[in-house]
């Protein structure tokens, strides 16, 4: 043991904190431009909430890529499916959703969210087996196959639910805002932040404190070695894929409630946003994905407030800026 203690002299891997500070720096930098403190707080809370929701949707995509080098262009389909499944629960139970009691509301919301996650997770199982398994290791075919999957899923949603926009009202007790002095904070945004933080903490805990997490991280580093040690990494990957799809479904429910509407094209629209976040964060990095989601949401909110015209292309500009600085994203996890 003394040898081990002596080896404590080994240099510790350097912690790369600059990207973590980036959102903070950005928030502080725009504060003088915005002027009033109350709008700054409102905008910041809005960005944090939006960022958390985007993070929930994007986390699965980045995990799947990191572990198995599979880029799922159909990730958006899980988002849309999650949202549609939630309407199956929330619309028939509208009286409970409209009841002015937080407990009743949550008692309806929670099963809706769980069902959405379960269905999109199960769909993930099917997609992985049917579309992705035959084309492992072939990027080109993966992109083509999953793009095809996205089209089919979107059209199937149109065929099943019709092309109209389905309104999905927020539960009564989550409407409105808390007003503290001049600062207005929407209640639902607080909930979104809470859920986002729980998901982030959960993923971090599983990845860093459990055996499965250890295997996943090892798989990201070196797949063959994990297989050589006797673990069935394919099964592990299937699990990660299902969890990732389920999280996308959860994100879809939250986004639908945030927008208070559901439409089949939302999967397609959000795919682009989620991709930008994943690229900014560095493909395969959960931490990077979290920061990337916050940055994208901040730029969207602050940008929309300061220069509304710029908001159309702000995501692209952010991505270009980040990639100029770090061509592989904030945290480049894999050596691939």
């Amino acid at each position, binding site marked *: 043991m003394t040898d081990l203690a002596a080896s404590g002299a080994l240099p510790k891997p350097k912690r790369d904190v600059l990207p973590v500070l980036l959102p903070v720096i950005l928030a502080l930098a725009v504060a003088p431009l915005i002027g009033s403190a109350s709008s700054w707080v409102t905008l910041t809370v809005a960005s944090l909430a939006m960022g958390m929701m985007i993070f929930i949707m994007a986390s699965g995509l980045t995990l799947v890529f990191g572990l198995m080098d599979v880029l799922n*262009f159909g990730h958006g389909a899980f988002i849309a499916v999650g949202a549609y499944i939630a309407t199956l629960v929330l619309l028939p139970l509208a009286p409970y959703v409209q009841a002015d009691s937080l407990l009743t509301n949550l008692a309806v919301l929670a099963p809706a969210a769980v069902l959405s996650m379960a269905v999109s997770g199960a769909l993930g199982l099917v997609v992985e087996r049917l579309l992705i398994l035959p084309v492992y290791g072939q990027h080109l075919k993966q992109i083509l196959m999953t793009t095809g999957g996205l089209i089919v899923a*979107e059209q199937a949603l149109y065929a*099943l639910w019709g092309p109209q926009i389905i309104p999905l009202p927020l539960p009564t007790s989550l409407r409105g805002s808390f007003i503290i002095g001049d600062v207005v904070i929407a209640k639902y945004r607080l909930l979104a932040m809470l859920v986002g933080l729980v998901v982030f903490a959960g993923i971090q805990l599983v990845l860093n404190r459990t055996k499965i997490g250890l295997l996943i991280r090892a798989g990201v580093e070196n797949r063959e070695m994990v297989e050589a040690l006797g673990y069935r990494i394919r099964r592990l990957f299937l699990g990660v894929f299902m969890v990732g799809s389920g999280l996308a479904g959860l994100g879809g429910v939250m986004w639908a409630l945030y927008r208070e509407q559901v439409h089949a094209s939302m999967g397609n629209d959000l795919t682009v946003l989620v991709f930008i976040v994943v690229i900014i964060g560095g493909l395969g990095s959960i931490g990077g994905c979290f920061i990337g989601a916050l940055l994208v949401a901040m730029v969207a909110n602050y940008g929309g407030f300061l220069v509304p015209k710029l908001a159309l292309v702000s995501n692209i500009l952010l991505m270009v800026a980040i990639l100029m600085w770090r061509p592989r994203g904030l945290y480049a996890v894999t050596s691939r």
Partner: protein
Amino acid sequence: MMVLSGDPPRSRVLSIVLIVIIAALAVTPLVFPGAKAMNVATKICIFAALVASYDLLLGYTGSVSFAHTMFYGIGSYSVAIALYSMGPGWAAVATGIVIGLPLALLLALAIGLFSLRVEAIFFAMITLAVASAFLVLASQLSWLTGGEDGRSFQLPELLRPGTVLISKGVFGFELNGRVLTYYLIFAGSAAMILALLRVVNSPFGRVLQAIRENRFRAEALGFRTVFHLTYANCIAALVAASAGMLNALWLRYAGPDTSLSFAIMLDILLMVVIGGMGTIYGAIIGAAIFILAQNYLQALMSAASNAAADAGLPLLPGLLHPDRWLLWLGLLFIASVYFFPTGVVGRLRSIGRKPS
């Protein structure tokens, strides 16, 4: 052989099919002068060129771009905006070309240098992001692009349908401006496809194929792969923009739905995969099959949908509704990537090769 750059179809059936398609396209205005047939024929010509240019990227370099419609749209819009704001005239057409092509080139260069350094997957995602931003821009900057409505415009005198060059008489058909426009598009598309054949069979094209097969080795052999890939991206963008210009000339209109939408991108992907990636000839076959199906199968689908509705079947009427055309397309797409990765051309070539 010189015209085909020493790369013949290499299959008797394929040659016959290609000759039939090209001959049919060449005589369409004489035999089927109706508006619908002419529209279909024009679309096949334009998409054959557009898909061939996409094949240069997808089939020969193995990089998936989702920004191809963006370049197509740049071409369409530059001609449309020039003709709209300067009035009908050849100077306006020239202005559109002079502005549109360099714009497409610069954008392709920027995207290429930026994203082709790392990996194919990166390129796919970045092109998707850039293309969607461009689509939003085009529909928001309504003072320039006309927003969602797009821009309709008048063609130069010579190309208008009303202009009759040879009246109906001796040969029993009329040579008017519309027919002239059609042959302009036909010739333009043919020239672009032949030029692309030239490109892929040049030493440069061989390097692209080497990069597709193994980028690392190509690099080890001393080729600057980023340069080659970016160059290919620029060529593809230029051809796509030119195809977009032809499209605008035919439609006398440019709008987000006809030139920029994500649906067109999917159509292109599908045509390349059906026709056969990495063959150029596949583009002609894919475009012909796909557009014929799109125009004539949708009627069939609506008939089937009505029949299913009359029979009282659940779900089927919705699934067979003509608007759900993309659903079946998507399934077809997945099936063809999975079962026929070499497409029609690859299949025909392998059949032809078996006896020998």
